[in-house]
């Protein structure tokens, strides 16, 4: 086993741990999180080899990088002492002796600009490493990284001196830059319901979207999750009851245009105008991953096929236009009726339990008001294990990513379908500013 230093972002904390665990599980890597600390962006992990470290971090959004761990200290003297007394130090030194190299500086909690002279002075203190290789700032074989952490001394100032320093050799940077690639600002086709890039990519990681599999978003909207799923190599398909969203605005503003823009055309299967609750996907089709942000009535109302007042539509199926049944014509627009959120979530869980393979994941977003005195009731299904409940807090409300694993008929977990879980209508609360 080798010690590695994992450097993570200090935000989206419940997502951060879920992403780390999910990626470890995806690549069959055993990690011990006993020393995982929510308050710290650092974690020291024992892993079998560099390959494991690379796999753990290469598609992570909420990690920054992973390093071979060389040492740490509360000041530079202690750091140098710790590095040279570290277990396996001589071996590490020998291993890297003749490689080309460079040094990088990172800081956490403060940003104290160093002059080039300061940096060179600091680097020269590492002469004891006896690195014989050439310095190469562009394509170094080894990148040694110093991460300095600073503390807050009051509400608006950080300490002048680093309070702790880590030192390691870079093994793998994370894929955090994918956030910018998929930034909504640059996306050709988007809408009011488009989901931001960072958490849509994280959602795919926690849902373990894999190359060569099928991912389905039953509330695809403008296709934000489809794009993220395609990025991780799945063949993606989506449906939405609102055909306007998936059709887009003419030929150059639609979901397929986004896939062309990202050069991922081959990942896109289809989007369909379809009511999730009147689903046309054959029931024996295995879907590897289901990921969605269902409508909660804020930007999109909860509607399904059918008539609000069926008596009004009695006999209308017999109406003919030019000798053709009206409802069979190409321009027919079906009526829709409101549906309850509880029923919709029950339907999603039931659908997932029927279509996911064993160990396949369902992930969906759910908003809740923060100030409610009543407990948020998470929907549960007897075949599905609730694996994660990740919370993103806003001022007066929050949204959660709920992640379930299909464990099959024998699982017999707790269930609460058919019960009324939401005591107040989230939409009403939202539009009255949670007063």
């Amino acid at each position, binding site marked *: 086993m080798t010690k590695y230093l994992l450097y993570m972002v200090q935000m989206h904390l419940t997502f951060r741990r879920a992403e780390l665990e999910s990626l470890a599980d995806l690549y069959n890597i055993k990690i011990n999180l006993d020393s995982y600390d929510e308050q710290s962006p650092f974690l020291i992990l024992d892993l079998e080899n560099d390959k494991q470290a690379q796999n753990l971090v290469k598609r992570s959004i909420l990690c920054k990088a992973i390093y071979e761990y060389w040492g740490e200290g509360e000041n530079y003297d202690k750091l140098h002492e710790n590095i040279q007394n570290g277990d396996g130090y001589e071996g590490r030194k020998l291993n890297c002796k003749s490689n080309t190299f460079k040094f990088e500086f990172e800081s956490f909690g403060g940003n104290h600009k160093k002059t080039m002279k300061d940096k060179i002075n600091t680097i020269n203190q590492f002469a004891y490493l006896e690195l014989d290789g050439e310095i190469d700032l562009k394509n170094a074989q080894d990148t040694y990284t110093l991460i300095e952490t600073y503390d807050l001394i009051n509400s608006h100032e950080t300490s002048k001196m680093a309070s702790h320093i880590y030192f390691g050799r870079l093994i793998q940077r994370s894929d955090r830059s994918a956030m910018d690639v998929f930034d909504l600002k640059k996306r050709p086709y988007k809408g009011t319901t488009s989901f931001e890039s960072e958490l849509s990519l994280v959602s795919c990681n926690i849902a373990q979207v894999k190359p060569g599999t099928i991912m389905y978003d039953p509330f695809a909207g403008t296709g934000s999750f489809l794009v993220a799923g395609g990025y991780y190599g799945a063949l993606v398909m989506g449906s939405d009851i609102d055909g306007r969203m998936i059709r887009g605005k003419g030929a150059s503003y639609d979901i397929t245009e986004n896939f062309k823009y990202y050069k991922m055309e081959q990942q896109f299967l289809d989007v369909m105008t379809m009511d999730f609750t*009147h689903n046309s996907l054959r029931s024996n089709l295995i879907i590897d991953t289901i990921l969605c942000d269902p409508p909660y009535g804020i930007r999109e109302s909860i509607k399904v096929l*059918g008539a609000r007042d069926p008596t009004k539509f009695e006999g*209308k199926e017999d109406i003919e236009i030019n000798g053709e049944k009206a409802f069979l014509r190409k321009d027919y627009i*079906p009526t829709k009726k409101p549906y309850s959120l509880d029923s919709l979530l029950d339907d999603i869980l039931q659908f997932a339990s029927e279509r996911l393979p064993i160990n396949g994941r369902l992930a969906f977003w759910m908003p809740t008001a923060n100030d409610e005195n009543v407990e948020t009731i998470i929907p549960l299904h007897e075949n599905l294990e609730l694996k994660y409940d990740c919370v993103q807090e806003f001022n007066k409300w929050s949204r959660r990513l709920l992640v379930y694993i299909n464990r099959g008929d024998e699982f017999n977990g707790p269930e609460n379908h058919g019960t009324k879980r939401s005591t107040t209508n989230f939409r009403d609360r939202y539009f009255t500013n949670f007063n």
Partner: protein
Amino acid sequence: MKFLTTNFLKCSVSACDISNDNFPLQYDGSKCKLVQNEDIEFRPEFLLNILDRIEWSAILQVAADLGNTSLPPNKPKLNINVDELTEEEQIILRDLHTLLLQTSIVEGEMKCKNCGHVYYIKNSIPNLLLPPHLA
């Protein structure tokens, strides 16, 4: 709508679920406009992965609806390991790729063989919504 998707879609009417005639939908060849997109690259791993989930008899039916009767009567049994594929198997996979992923129905209509409801495809997007008396 890609040809592969025809292998996934049944009639939306839930009453048709008890019938065996709700899948595949019956495509009206005279009204379906097909397009080939050769930019979609060939990925044998993915096809091998997906082959298990394909209902071959439905592929044959829809292909025949659209005027292609040259497919083998049985689902090709292929070596699971991509590196061990024979030349002949490679050719089969390429043909499948052309059919399933490069061929799309951009305009057309299809019908449930059980209830007779007609669905349309416009601008490559199938519309599977139902009128209230069928919902």
